[in-house]
């Protein structure tokens, strides 16, 4: 799968996050390589969103080391991490609702100003995401699916190495979910993907490896098929011995 000596795209060692006495994250360890796509699942309150917030500079970790493409991420704020190539989306779709779709994209392109993506790439992404017809509309007036695609477009123009997707299919109608999963497959060609979900449906089709988080601790890490049959996961997930 990946050359043993290669520097991991993302490596997390003993990552711990504490709020008062409560451990939101307790000694999380894992690595991810550029050509892999990773998933993370966990029930409500398992620490998934805290994990994303720590990795993308919104929270400061209590202890532990985080490396992105070989560079330490400690002490870096969210906008600096974008410079390294690490972007994220939010669980609830988040766009500049009052601005037009075009202005939303232009705002994201501000980051690189001159040495951003080429016009060719820009047109290619736009066409692939089928956003051209809605460029003139105000962002809050387009469908949720189009808003999700706009979020992807705004990340792609940042030339990301890794995009952390927080529940990318949340709120979509069942037909749109399969279309989004297909899009996310194709997205892998442009950037590594890290998908956070509270169920396996999306992850088992996208991720090569899945990390399971429960009550702030990593209890499993392996391919989706292995996770689905892992007794501890089923037990923790479905409540007392039921399966």
């Amino acid at each position, binding site marked *: 799968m990946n050359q043993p000596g290669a520097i991991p795209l993302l490596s997390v060692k003993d990552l711990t996050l504490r709020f008062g006495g409560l451990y939101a994250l307790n000694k999380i360890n894992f690595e991810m390589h550029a050509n892999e796509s990773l998933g993370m699942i966990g029930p409500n309150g398992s620490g998934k969103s805290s994990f994303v917030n720590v990795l*993308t500079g*919104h929270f400061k970790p209590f202890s532990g080391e985080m490396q992105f493409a070989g560079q330490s991420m400690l002490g870096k*704020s*969210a*906008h600096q991490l*974008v*410079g390294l190539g690490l*972007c*994220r989306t*939010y669980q609830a779709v*988040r*766009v*500049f*609702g*009052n*601005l037009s779709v075009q*202005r939303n994209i*232009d*705002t*994201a392109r*501000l*980051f690189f*100003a001159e040495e951003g993506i080429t016009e060719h790439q820009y047109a290619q992404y736009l066409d692939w995401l089928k956003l051209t017809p809605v460029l003139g509309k105000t962002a809050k007036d387009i469908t949720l699916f189009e808003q999700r695609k706009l979020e992807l477009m*705004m990340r792609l123009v*940042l030339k990301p190495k890794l995009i952390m997707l927080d529940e990318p299919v949340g709120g979509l109608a069942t037909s749109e979910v399969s279309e989004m999963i297909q899009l996310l497959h194709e997205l892998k060609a442009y950037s590594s993907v890290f998908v956070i979900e509270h169920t396996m449906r999306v992850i088992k089709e996208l991720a090569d490896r899945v990390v399971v988080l429960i009550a702030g601790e990593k209890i499993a890490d392996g391919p989706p098929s292995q996770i689905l049959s892992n007794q501890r996961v089923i037990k923790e997930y479905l409540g007392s011995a039921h399966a």
Partner: protein
Amino acid sequence: MKIKPLHALLTLALLVLPFLFKDNRFLGFILGITYLNIFWATGMNILYGFVGLMPLMFAAISGIAAYALLYFIAEWHINFWFALPVATLFASFIGVLLGLPSLRLKGFYFTLCSLIIQSTLTLAFIFFPKFTNGDTGINQISPPLWFGEPIKGYAFECMLALMAVVGIGVSYFVYQSNLGQRFVAIREDDVLAESLGINVVINRVVAFFIVSLYAALGGCFYATYIGFISPRSFDVLSSLNIWLFVAFGGKATIAGPVIGSILLAPLPFLLQSLEAYKDILSGVLIVLITLLMPGGIYGTYLAWRNANK
């Protein structure tokens, strides 16, 4: 940067007006005051309209600049044109410091904090007479010299007209530039802006610096134009008044603050006899604008025009 014919016409009008009122000192003076307020309102609009913060300490920054200018001129015996840049930069530096709370506070809490800063500084203006001559204020402020000749009357109004036009131009340039787009992104959703690579902290500091320049320059020219300043010229009511010009005209637009200033700034002078009504009128306008027409005149017009397009 395309300049629409309307803007060119408006700019030309602003520049020509002083010649029309050359001899009528009363109307000329009102015109000068209106230009000053256009300059101030355009500056405050950058923070209130573009970045989405309501800085009630705006007048205090003007005050600091005006008092600093007079202090430098008096103590260091330098002329106006040397003292001006020093005073402006000094006040703008303090303006940026006063803006730092905006990095932690937003919305109401920031506005309340800016109100506290404004009240504190107004008290400071009263209680440090060594610099500000206290509550009685400073009068007989000599106007700036231009090759030995004091700039007075209509000449001053031309300078103020030029300053107002330059002020509008700079704010138009900022609005069109990448910096302006970053400001708008921060106003709309600063967390999203941060995760798109925008350094929210630095951009807010830059915004405060630019707005403080407007406040400071305005303060210095106000002092030398009116010839008298006191703590009351730079109190909370002055900040609120400038805010009203922006909100009444239409925030987050270029023309809004200009329209607001042109309509409201002359009123207190035109209604000379009804002096006390000034407060009541601006209070009523503040309430009506906030409750009924948050977009202001020009903003509501734009919304109406887009709706019918």
